[in-house]
């Protein structure tokens, strides 16, 4: 077991890659009552077209990774939530574009709960009947999101930005795609993506690293897995330009919702350069659009934005885009004011003091995040999938330069690759 201390952060990380390929990370938090564990597979909604080792390529229905996540909780002896509950643990899971995460938090019976987590995810149990029963539940989940304007405007933007890349497909799929899913398809996806060598386990909390690692190893040693074959993920080529510059839908909302963003060349989705680019872009967006920026204050005074105005930057295998916006009385005016600010800042450059303040803010937010085991587990795994190290981010932030941020701004804000998504009510 490798031990990596981070003296400045007062954290120590333990790591081992097991014989079956599973990566195990343990972060003891002395004095903490709670333990939080995530078991992650590098498999998400974008992995809908792939060639399993030695087989023909398959294209699976939209929403199947998410469906699989739901179904994993059913075991021959019943619902795994009950098992966790009797061990005092609260369990959950979620599916994103590029990963599926199973998790629990508990303040006791930690080793038992770790076993339960590993065992239920490594024991798929799908029947025609239980797959059929799940469809009604997932369709209600889809309907719930369809009535949610924040979610609709967000996905509207991704749809406007991307024409081929599966990032534009709803993570839960559609009622129709969900109805077409069978247990055979679920098993095929499971076999392809749930091999230990495609997965990682992260445990953080008031635990002993040695004992916890021993428990994980004993659990895994008692199971046999076929050798892992290489999985080839297939992506059609995504054109550089946006699919459509503007998307508008109607839903009952009090004010129009407007999100817009720039599509970028995806570049490498993993590695130091990719992570550096991500941090630099986020810092740049905050310097320009954050609550202490002159632009933000002016837009607020002009009643063009509200407290929910925000920004983010999203990257993954084959995609990279920014998301900017919120509720506004006048979407066109908002887009034109913000894009004009991007243009003029590209010319004049972000100033040194603004850059330093934004950097300080980012480092502070990062350190505050380290108070939360949940956030650490989520962010650690996300950076790990990108080949990076969450605990090295302060050094990375400190090494960013103003020139780099300004170069990022000029490169990112390409007006020909902007798309706008709007949700409006009848009266707005």
């Amino acid at each position, binding site marked *: 077991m490798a031990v990596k201390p981070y003296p400045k952060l007062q954290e120590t990380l333990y790591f081992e890659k097991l014989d079956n390929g599973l990566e195990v990370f343990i972060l003891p938090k002395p004095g903490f009552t709670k333990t939080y564990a995530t078991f992650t597979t590098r498999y998400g909604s974008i992995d809908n077209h792939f060639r399993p080792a030695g087989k023909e390529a398959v294209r699976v229905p939209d929403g199947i990774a998410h469906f699989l996540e739901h179904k994993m909780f059913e075991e021959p002896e019943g619902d795994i939530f009950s098992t966790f509950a009797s061990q005092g643990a*609260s369990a959950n899971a979620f599916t994103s574009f590029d990963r599926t995460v199973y998790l629990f938090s508990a303040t006791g019976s930690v080793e038992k709960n770790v076993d339960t987590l590993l065992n239920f995810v490594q024991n798929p149990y799908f029947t025609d009947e239980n797959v059929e029963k799940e469809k009604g539940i997932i369709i209600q989940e889809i309907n719930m999101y369809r009535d949610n304007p924040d979610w609709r405007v967000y996905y509207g933007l991704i749809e406007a930005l991307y024409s081929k890349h599966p990032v534009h497909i709803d993570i839960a799929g559609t009622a129709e795609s969900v109805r077409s899913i069978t247990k055979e398809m679920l098993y095929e996806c499971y076999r392809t993506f749930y091999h230990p060598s495609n997965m990682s386990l992260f445990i953080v909390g008031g635990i002993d690293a040695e004992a916890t690692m021993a428990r994980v190893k004993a659990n895994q040693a008692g199971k046999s897995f076929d050798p892992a074959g290489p999985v080839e993920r297939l992506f059609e080529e995504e054109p550089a330009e946006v699919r459509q510059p503007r998307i508008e839908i109607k839903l009952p909302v009090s004010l129009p919702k407007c999100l817009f963003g720039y599509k970028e060349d995806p570049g490498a989705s993993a590695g130091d350069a990719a992570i550096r680019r991500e941090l630099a872009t986020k810092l740049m967006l905050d310097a320009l659009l954050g609550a202490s920026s002159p632009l933000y204050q002016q837009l607020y005074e002009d009643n063009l934005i509200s407290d929910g105005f925000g920004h983010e930057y999203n990257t993954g295998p084959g995609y990279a885009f920014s998301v900017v916006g919120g509720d506004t009385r006048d979407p066109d005016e908002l887009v034109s004011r913000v894009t004009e600010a991007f243009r003029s800042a590209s010319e004049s450059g972000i100033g040194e003091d603004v850059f330093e303040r934004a950097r300080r803010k980012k480092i*502070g937010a990062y350190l505050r995040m380290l108070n939360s085991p949940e956030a650490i587990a989520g962010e650690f795994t996300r950076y790990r999938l990108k080949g990076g190290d969450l605990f090295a981010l302060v050094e990375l932030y400190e090494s960013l330069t103003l020139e780099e941020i300004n170069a990022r701004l000029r490169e990112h804000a390409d007006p020909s690759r902007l798309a706008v998504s709007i949700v409006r009510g009848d009266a707005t």
Partner: protein
Amino acid sequence: MTAELFERGSVGRMRLHVLPTKRFKTFSLSLFVGIPLNEAWVTPVALTPFVLRRGTAAYPETISFRERLDDLYGAGFGFDLYKRGDYQIVQFRLDIINDRFVSSQESLLKEAISFLGEVLTAPALEDGQFRSRYVETEKTTVAKRIDAIINDKIRYAGERCIEEMCKDEPYRLLALGRKDDLSGIDADSLYRRYSEWLGSAVLDLYVSGDTSLGEVQSFAEKAFKLPSGSPQRYSAPVLRAPRAEPQTIVERLDVGQGKLNLGLRTSTSYGDPDYAALLVYNGVLGAFPHSKLFVNVREKASLAYYAASRLDGHKGLLTIQSGIEIENYERALGIIREQLAAMKEGQFAADDIARTKAMLENQLREIQDSAYERISFDFNSVLSGTERTAGSLQAEVDAVTPEAIVEAAQGVVLDTIYFLRDRKGDN
């Protein structure tokens, strides 16, 4: 578990609660300002923190105010407004990193307390009142917030159900106030309300981090310029009886999914000795994925993605919420009523109780790991005048018997059925 305890003191009208701990990388500050919820005050009180966050005497321009927070290593500042029991509470939060993680020249805790003191007691003024530009802009912001509730249909249905259930009492009001009141408020009238508010509200400052009561006391004395007086206390809520027959409210909007919400009254509130029994009752009924509602509405009948109950212990209300296919209204309501009846008749297994207790005890232990959750839990005790700690509530939960759950169930009465549905067939 290390027994870290809150140390108590006061500065003038404000009570101090300090949790010395080295566990976190931050100092967490929470300031609770509460007054009885009522029609005359609700809107100006809701508007006040919005105006206060625009600027202080030392940082009168919003941009300099925000820059100051960024310079304090991106201190997290914000506020919440909510109803708790019969009170309207404004909670200010400030989260700032401990100096030892950065090379800072200033005591960040001192700066944080000083900043918070200024926000509350030394706002940016012009001609002895609030800046009217800030007041006017923030009136628009509050109006937009109130309007925006309809955007999130889950929240909207929840608020509407409470509004209908409590239509004859102040609890029907939103913590954000009433939109119609806003036009009658100006900088002068708001400043007068604000001054009265500071002089009459119950004030509690919490600080958690590597500090002591003495240190916080000396910082707070300089930072807060409060009207004179001694600390006030909260009083227990008045629990209303349910209506004789449940009312049914159907509302129509352009929605795809129906939202079925039930409002129930209980005969117990947070400060009562039988509160733990009601907590376990709620757990067996609908707080968890192993609970009756989740298992029967979702897992067995496949009618919903979410089906849960929530206990508002401070007001003694219990709500049930679910998102369903509109045509399944009768079926879902039938299943939910069966679960309520089963609870009354004691139809639950020893396993259900054991799981619920294990989950509740886990939740209570988890509180230890978050500064804000420890503060919230302690404030709940302060608010309801109990001496309860997370540890003592665990013991109370553990001691709950099946008979006590059945007894709690007898006090839970359905008051309001609220259904948000589509416009089809509506004339």
